[in-house]
C-alpha cells in the first residue's frame, strides 16, 4: 500500500499523532513492525520483552498502542499485559503472535488485550487493528 493509498484509507491518521510501542524479542519482527508503523506515520519505540515494556510505563512512558508479542524471555506477552492492566494502564494493546491455537489466543485475550492478530503482520492487518481500536476518525 502506497503512502497515498494509506492517506485515503485513514485521512486523519497523520494529524492524529499516534504513538506505539513494539514489544518483541525478534529483531526481524521489530524491524518489520517499526517499518509498518512508520509507513502509517505512527511514531514508535521498541523494547525486547514484557518487563522492558512495563519498565517504560513505570518510568512515565505512555503510548496509544502497544503491539505485544506473546513469546518473549524474562516476561512474556501474557504476563506483561496482565501487569500493565493491574497498573491501570489503558493503552490499547494488540497481541501479535504466530500461535493460532484457540486456547492460547483466549488466554492472551483474557490477559487484557483489545485486539489480536496473527503474525506475520502486514499493512492490512495493522490497518484492521487501527480500525477496530477506533484510531480511525471519520471526516
Amino acid at each position, binding site marked *: 500500500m502506497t503512502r497515498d493509498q494509506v492517506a485515503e484509507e485513514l485521512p486523519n491518521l497523520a494529524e492524529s499523532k499516534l504513538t506505539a510501542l513494539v514489544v518483541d524479542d525478534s529483531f526481524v519482527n521489530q524491524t*518489520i513492525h517499526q517499518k509498518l508503523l512508520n509507513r502509517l506515520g505512527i511514531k514508535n519505540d521498541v523494547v525486547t520483552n514484557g518487563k522492558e515494556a512495563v519498565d517504560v510505563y513505570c518510568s512515565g512512558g505512555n503510548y496509544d498502542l502497544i503491539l505485544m508479542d506473546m513469546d518473549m524471555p524474562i516476561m512474556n506477552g501474557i504476563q506483561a499485559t496482565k501487569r500493565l492492566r493491574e497498573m491501570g494502564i489503558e493503552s490499547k494493546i494488540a497481541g501479535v503472535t504466530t500461535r493460532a491455537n484457540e486456547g492460547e489466543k483466549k488466554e492472551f485475550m483474557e490477559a487484557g488485550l483489545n485486539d489480536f492478530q496473527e*503474525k506475520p503482520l502486514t499493512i492490512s492487518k495493522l490497518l484492521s487493528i487501527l480500525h477496530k481500536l477506533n484510531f480511525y476518525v471519520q471526516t
Partner: protein
Amino acid sequence: MICKNLFIGIAISNKLYIFFFSLLLPSRRVERAMDTLIAQLQRRFCDFTISLYHQGFLDDQFTELKKLQDECSPDFVAEVVTLFFEDCEKLISNMARALDQTGNVDFKLVGSSVHQLKGSSSSVGAKRVKGLCVTLKECCDSQNYEGCVRCLQQVDIEYKTLKAKLQDLFNLEQQIVQAGGRIPQVDI
C-alpha cells in the same frame, strides 16, 4: 544532446559533418546496447523472482516486505533478510548444541528455538524454511531425536540455499540499477 546538436549546426563541410555524425553514432549504439542489456537483466530478474515463488522458496509475505521498501529505505528487504539469516545461524547453532547432548537433550530448548525460527521465517516469507520448522517442532514435541537431527540438517541446507538465491536476486537488482534501469514490478 544540445552540445551535439550544436556541433552539427556548426559543421560547414561534408567531411566535418561526417566527423561529427560519427561521434554521435557510437553513443547511440552504446545507448541501444545499454537498453538491450537493461531489458535482458530485467527479464532475468522477473524470471528468477517468479521461479523463487513457484519453487516454494518464497511466499506472499516476501511480497509484503517488498511493498514496504521505498526511497526512505531502499535496502529494507536486504536488511530484514540479513537479520533473518543471522537468526538462522544463531538458532540452528543453539539447537545443534542442544541435540549434541545425547541422552540428555533439552527438547524444550530446541522447541523454543525452532518456534523463534518459525516466527522469523514466516515474517520474511521463507516458505520452505518455515515448513521445515513446523516438521522440526513436531519431532521435538514427540521427542523424536533422530527426526530432530535429520530435520535440523535440512533446515540448515534450506536456509543456506535461500541465502544464496536471494544474494543472486539482490545482485541482479544492483546490476539493473548500475546499468541505469529500474527494478521491474513482478506480478506473482
